[in-house]
């Protein structure tokens, strides 16, 4: 069996997701043995356009990004979005809340016309994405699981249940019991309840589960003293590109 060729790309993001891959430590050697890495924006200078699997970090925020992502989409057979920015647009989407022109003006003042900037979108708005390694930063073990699953030809196991499950498996105190609010009940697990495990509320960086009970979550946040505006802000931190609307009856 020849080793699959893999390209690891950074579009617009902080680079932290690629760093998570570099931080694999124990498993990095096994990874390099299992696949052939032909491009790694943050780690190697060599580059080849011959790859089957693309791992993409970052969201699409410039015309140049659009060109790059389309090219990757044309070449790769399998595309994995890595991290919140690639998956759902991530924090970058906060720009959209101001509007592109206003945001450019706020940041670059009278030099704003020099800047190539468009409305922020996750990569699946431009190309087909096969798998999503969610999170900010993503869980490196999940990235490994996706790669390993692709090699042996099975579906990666990506949870479609809320963070509360992992909190229970980890024996955590629910942060609501110590007066902190949390988006865990509607947020997709897979982070090993990283934030609640350190007594911090979940901010929803992995996005929503498939069938979230948004109405119940809104009631819960309101009961814990949040205003409608606070609640929208909570949901929007990582999900501003994917609008959250309350369904009438939440099934």
């Amino acid at each position, binding site marked *: 069996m020849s080793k699959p060729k893999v390209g690891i790309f950074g579009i617009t993001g902080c680079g932290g997701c690629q760093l998570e891959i570099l931080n694999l430590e124990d498993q990095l050697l*096994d990874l390099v043995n299992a696949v052939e890495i032909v491009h790694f924006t943050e780690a190697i200078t060599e580059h080849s356009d011959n790859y089957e699997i693309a791992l993409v970090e970052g969201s699409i925020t410039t015309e140049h990004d659009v060109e790059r992502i389309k090219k990757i989409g044309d070449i790769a057979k399998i595309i994995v979005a890595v991290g919140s920015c690639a998956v759902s647009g991530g924090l970058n989407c906060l720009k959209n809340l101001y509007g592109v022109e206003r945001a450019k003006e706020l940041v670059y003042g009278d030099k704003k016309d020099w800047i190539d900037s468009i409305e922020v979108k996750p990569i699946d708005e431009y190309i087909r994405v096969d798998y999503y390694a969610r999170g900010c930063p993503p869980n490196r073990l999940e990235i490994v699981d996706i790669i390993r699953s692709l090699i042996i030809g099975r579906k990666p196991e990506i949870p479609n249940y809320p963070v509360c*499950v992992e909190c229970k498996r980890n024996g955590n105190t629910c942060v609501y019991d110590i007066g902190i609010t949390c988006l865990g*009940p509607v947020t997709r697990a897979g982070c090993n309840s990283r934030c609640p495990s350190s007594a911090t509320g979940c901010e929803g960086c992995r996005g929503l589960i498939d069938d979230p*009970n948004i109405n119940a979550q809104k009631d819960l946040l309101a009961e814990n003293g949040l205003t409608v505006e606070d609640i929208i802000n909570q949901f929007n931190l990582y999900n501003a590109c994917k609008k959250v609307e309350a369904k009438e009856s939440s099934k």
Partner: protein
Amino acid sequence: MLYKVMGRDVFKDFVKSLISNYEFIGPKRKDKAVHDFVPIKDISELDINYKRTTIPPAKKILFPPDEKLVAYEVNEKIKVRPVVESSEKVLFGINAWDINGMNFLDRFFVTDFVDENYLERRKKLIVIGMDSEPTETNFSPSMDSEYAKDGFDLYITELKDRYFIRINTARGDEILKKYSVTENALVKDFKDYNNYMDNYRKKFKLDVNIKDFYDNFELIYDDDEFWEKVAKNCYSCGSCNLACPTCFCFNVKDDIELNLKDGNKTREWDSCMLPEYGLVAGGHNFRPDKENRLKQRYRCKLKTFLDKFGRYACVGCGRCIEVCLAKINIADNINSIKKEVSV
């Protein structure tokens, strides 16, 4: 059963000896909300005056949330090795309803199929029970679980100036003889103990009308309106299952290393409240809606095991009420079911 009494100082020394001679698991304060059962190295860490614990202690030890079952190696030949991790432990300070929850798991894991991993750990677990303060959501007297009849080696009850000890196994008797000095319990001790139990039972405030409930669950089973109302705010988060001392469902996963040679089969806690629990190959889901799932959970607790083991799969610990952010309350719901079906 043998009955002894022990003085206060003797008790303290007894606990100290257990801590230094065994792998000792006991309650320790975790934060302002809960206690947790963890390995104790010094008596100062132990806090037997606990009220709320998140994950039931016996379940955590005997049926851990994440457990390796099989390790394998793929070379020219495939080598497969069962993994059973167990060691002798003292579980100290577990209360009566959690012992009753463990008794349920004991029965589940040896009926129909014997779970070697569970059984190995259970045999090596020395159980020393003690009463704890019930929480506001506890209704264990309604479920006949505020008192442990069996399942423990020793059960120690604190009376005013001494401890009343019920010895239920030869192992418990040996440990007591080896590490402490006791006296036979006399009529007066029994009287004080009965008195204590009367007062203890008064501390449980929540009353659930489950008497003669038996077959009545069937009458509510098809009432969609009832289940829709009850499940409306459910997040399908599984917390109620995972925190329950009698919930035993698990999922087995295949973890192969990146070297594609070594791998494990591991099991992790699963929950019937999660949408994917009822999903089968081909994409069909037996319980696609939260109403169906909640109904299934209640049926498991209140009917399935009544038919199978002659007892409810609920000890009334109240944890599923405490952890449910949607405020779905099994005690209230049993009362409403009882009301609906008795018209």
